[in-house]
């Protein structure tokens, strides 16, 4: 059974819609800027969505702007993705989202006041629960058949896409919104800083002198449908989810294995799942966070799978920052834009290759490329590795 993608919606530091995002990608316009974080007593390079909570709420017709920013970002992207679709009694419809910290943006505001013995609103904590973030979106779109949230750190929304595809194949759903959301929070910025992997400068994925990541925020959603569902909705097909696989690295809590076992299994598994051969992969949208460990491991994985014939690859995180749980879906959407416009978006800020593997990513916007099958992978904390293959539908 084929799993088709018939909708996309996105919001990130480089754009508040698919069109804005595409233009930013084409013009190599990064969303990363130095931003002051007074509570943290310093500034960080981050990529924020340009809309405030009240602007997001207004643009989504959401009456209550005092909900988690993650929900608001999710609403924005999901509404764009859903488009003109309607709820229908004969089309089983679900929503699956990934998130890493749910409503932490509100919880940390509460907790700061609470610790200082200042008045704090306990109702703010009602948004903390990760599952509740997507319930706001499900409510708004009237989706009631299936609601799920996956939390596997950076691979969350990739896993959401995979799970949605599996549910359709199992006949449990006909149509499903899949994606992920994560708002920036002081909690996560401080977390990565404490791990000493937050770059004080702009990130340089796959570079010899890479020195850590920069965070971003955003939300990305895709609409997956079966052929039978499309026969009822009449939706236009954008691309196909042709393969997927998830594996666990099982090496260390935060570091990936030097032999890249988890990533290698995921990449090989996805190619096999798609009934493709390694030479069928035309381009890889990498995880490429810019940390010493990730980029080396990922390079080793590519060498394990593709040997000397590594396809063109690039990390787009120098555009959007690392959007954590949303990254898998955001980058899957970039793959769809690549496929349908025959363009590869570059790995910005690259100067010198990693000496251990000597791989060079694509460093400028490259047009008129024949792309049929694109691989995209996400490698999360705890060793969670997911690879997806997005394919062109002619």
């Amino acid at each position, binding site marked *: 059974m084929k799993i088709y993608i018939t909708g996309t919606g996105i919001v990130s530091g480089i754009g508040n819609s698919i069109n804005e995002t595409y233009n930013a990608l084409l013009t190599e316009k990064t969303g990363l800027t130095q931003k002051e974080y007074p509570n943290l007593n310093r500034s960080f390079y981050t990529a924020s969505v340009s809309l405030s909570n009240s602007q997001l709420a207004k643009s989504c017709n959401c009456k209550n702007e005092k909900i988690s920013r993650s929900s608001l970002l999710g609403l924005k992207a999901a509404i764009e993705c859903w488009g003109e679709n309607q709820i229908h009694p004969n089309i089983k419809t679900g929503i699956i989202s990934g998130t890493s910290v749910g409503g932490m943006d509100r919880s940390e505001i509460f907790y700061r006041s609470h610790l200082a013995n200042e008045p704090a609103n306990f109702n703010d904590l009602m948004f903390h629960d990760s599952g509740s973030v997507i319930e706001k979106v499900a409510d708004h779109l009237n989706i009631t058949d299936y609601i799920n949230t996956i939390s596997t750190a950076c691979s969350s929304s990739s896993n959401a896409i995979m799970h949605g595809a599996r549910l359709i194949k199992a006949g449990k759903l006909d149509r499903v919104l899949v994606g992920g959301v994560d708002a920036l929070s002081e909690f996560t910025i401080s977390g990565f800083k*404490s*791990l*000493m992997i937050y770059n004080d400068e702009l990130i340089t994925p796959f570079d010899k002198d890479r020195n850590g990541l920069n965070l971003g925020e955003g939300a990305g959603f895709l609409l997956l449908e079966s052929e039978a569902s499309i026969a009822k909705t009449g939706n236009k097909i954008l691309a196909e989810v042709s393969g997927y696989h998830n594996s666990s690295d099982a090496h*260390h*809590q*935060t*570091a990936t294995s030097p032999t890249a076992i988890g990533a290698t299994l995921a990449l090989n598994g996805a190619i096999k799942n798609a009934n493709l051969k390694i030479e069928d992969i035309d381009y890889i949208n990498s995880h490429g966070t810019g940390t010493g460990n990730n980029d080396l491991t990922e390079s080793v994985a590519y060498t394990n799978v593709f040997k000397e014939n590594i396809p063109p690859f690039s990390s787009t995180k120098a555009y959007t920052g690392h959007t954590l749980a949303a990254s898998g879906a955001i980058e899957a959407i970039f793959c769809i834009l690549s496929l349908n416009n025959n363009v590869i978006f570059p790995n910005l800020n690259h100067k010198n290759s990693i000496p251990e593997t000597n791989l060079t990513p694509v460093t400028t916007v490259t047009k008129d490329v024949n792309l049929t099958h694109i691989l995209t992978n996400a490698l999360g904390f705890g060793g969670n590795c997911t690879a997806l293959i997005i394919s062109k539908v002619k």
Partner: protein
Amino acid sequence: MLVNREELKKQIIEELNLEELTATDIADDALLFGDDGIGLDSIDALELIVLLEKFYGVELTNPEEGKEVFESISTMANYIEKNS
């Protein structure tokens, strides 16, 4: 400032939650990292960097230096004495 090695061991046991160990279990020159040693890993290395700053006001800004500095209690104590 001279570092009290026993005190340092207790601080490490406390901060890294080494539940099974007491100060007498850690020899001054025992390897802290790797399976042959006490068995600390990369997360512990970060915790030790925090410990240096918290208890001794010493900053280790380059985590790469950590390998040498944190080799054993002795090397840690020597580093603190040299830099405080």
